[in-house]
């Protein structure tokens, strides 16, 4: 049980950080597809008798590369959808050849509180650290190319390389999170809390911190509830994430409504033809504040 808490905490941190960029780039679909590929890897690993973490990692990276290279030529969403089903179909084939019972498959897909043994703790921590390091190194170009890809290109940041690098980070994050949250619901954790966080604050740094905090609350609550009810952890992760998103949107809508009136009033004032704005130089003088 202690292992579960440690791993869950690491999972939440990674999902919160990586999820921030998933939401920023609008990569919800790849974030959903890659874990499904990883699921096939875990099933394959069981079949050939190697560590499931290895299978998860290898297949997650393979799906990332598949999505990246197919998407480079054609439509992104089509490429993602087809890479997703191809990997899942492999998973189905592997499963049909194994003698494992349904509960194992179920926990791979939907998560398992006690799914991590002490020996697996170290590799999971290593993967997590690698993820955080990669995000830290890529931070600025990733941010720039996610927000304004054209300007990034003009500054020599290659969007296609950034995309592949990001998908690989996503794959690493996936490999470590599948055993806890399950292949089908990681992406939920990667979009619910970050989406809520960005509705709450306009600062990128604060949004990442808040996203991690919300992911932690989600995972901890999900584990506690799952432990109490014995229901699958994925159910709670999915539901709490959706709840967080809903709250974020509600908060945002309320705030926008609140701010709309004064903002639009100043706008019409400044641009109404009846009151010509003073020349720019003067206005700047008036507005300049000591720094």
């Amino acid at each position, binding site marked *: 049980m202690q292992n579960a808490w440690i791993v869950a905490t690491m999972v939440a941190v990674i999902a919160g950080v990586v999820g921030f960029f998933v*939401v920023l*780039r*609008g990569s*919800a*679909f790849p*974030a*959903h597809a890659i874990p*499904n590929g990883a699921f096939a890897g875990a099933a394959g690993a069981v079949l050939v008798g190697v560590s499931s973490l290895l299978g998860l990692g290898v297949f997650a990276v393979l799906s990332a590369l598949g999505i990246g290279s*197919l998407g480079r*030529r*054609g*439509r992104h*969403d*089509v490429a*993602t*959808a*087809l890479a*997703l*089903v*191809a990997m*899942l*179909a*492999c998973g*189905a*084939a592997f*499963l*049909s*050849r194994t003698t494992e019972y*349904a*509960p194992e*498959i*179920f926990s791979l*897909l*939907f*998560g398992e509180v006690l799914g991590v043994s002490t020996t697996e703790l170290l590799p999971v921590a290593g993967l997590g650290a690698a993820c955080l390091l990669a995000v830290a190194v890529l931070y600025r170009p990733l941010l720039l190319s996610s927000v304004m890809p054209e300007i990034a290109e003009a500054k020599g940041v290659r969007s296609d390389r950034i995309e592949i690098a990001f998908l690989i980070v996503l794959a690493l994050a996936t490999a470590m999170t599948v055993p806890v949250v*399950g292949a*089908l*619901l990681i*992406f*939920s954790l990667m*979009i*619910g809390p970050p*989406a809520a966080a960005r509705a709450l604050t306009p600062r990128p740094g604060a949004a990442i911190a808040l996203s991690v905090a919300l992911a932690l609350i989600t995972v901890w609550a999900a584990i506690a509830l799952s432990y109490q009810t014995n*229901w*699958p952890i*994925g*159910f*709670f*992760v*999915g*539901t709490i*994430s*959706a709840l967080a*998103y*809903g709250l974020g949107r509600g908060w945002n809508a309320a705030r926008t409504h609140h701010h709309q009136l004064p903002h639009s009033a100043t706008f019409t004032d400044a641009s109404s033809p009846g009151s010509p704005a003073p020349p720019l130089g003067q206005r700047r003088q008036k507005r300049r504040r000591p720094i």
Partner: protein
Amino acid sequence: MGWLIEPGFFASAQVHTALVIGAAAALVSAVVGVFTVIRGQSFGGHALTDASATGGSGSLLAGVNPLLGFVVGAVTAAGAMEAIGVRHARGRDLATGIVLGASIGLASLFLYLDTTATATTGATQQILFGSIFAPAPGTVPIVAGFGAASLAIILALYRPLLLTSISGDLAAARGVPVRLVGLAYMLALALAVALSSLAIGAILSTALLIGPPATALHATRRAGRALIGAAGLGIACTWIGVLLAYDSAHWFSDGNGLPVSFFIVAVIFLAYLISDLTTHRATRRSTAAGRTGALVGDRDPRAAR
């Protein structure tokens, strides 16, 4: 011939049912899927397949025909996504993802309750990966009914749907009720997804929905031809998949074959890969020869004809 088709293939009643259900699912999915690809809603389509899994797993719990569960799940999710209605593309993906996550969460709960409360073994695999060889009794008439309904919606709305898929503004300017057409399309999509969930399983039905249409749109830029091509390709892939799955039982010493959904998806994926590689090469050639290679659907104004 014997090496290709194992004995007993054509005699088996199970196979007959599988071929009929598979063809119906492939046909409907391909026709609806052409619009899904043109509209760039692969993610939305996929989300519906997972939502239909929720319905399917719920149906086992309630003890009704899974197909009804698939339909209810998909239609509900389609309604939810249409209701959230975010305009910004990234925001739309996000909303889709949230609905998807919540419905998978619910599916996990239903499946858990299926296996514990009602002791239905193999529910997970049946719902997620399909059961084309063993449909519940009385499924074929329901399949025919829902399939016909979905096709009827698409054919009736063919022209306004194409117009709204290419440009919502253009369609609105021509007086097309864009929102209403979108809703009807989502309904057709939900029905198609439910059918293919039955055939190859909920989480793989995306393959039938996206694969053949994307492949067909690689080959032709005309929506009408793409429709026919996708339907033909979808049915062919499904039948080849069924055949291979039937054969595969003889490949292994234990007599257990590989799942039919694996073969169907593998054939579809292969077809897409081949068309992707060949069109890529053709595009490069034609660009060099003086024409710019246009992408399918999304950017080609000629698709409007």
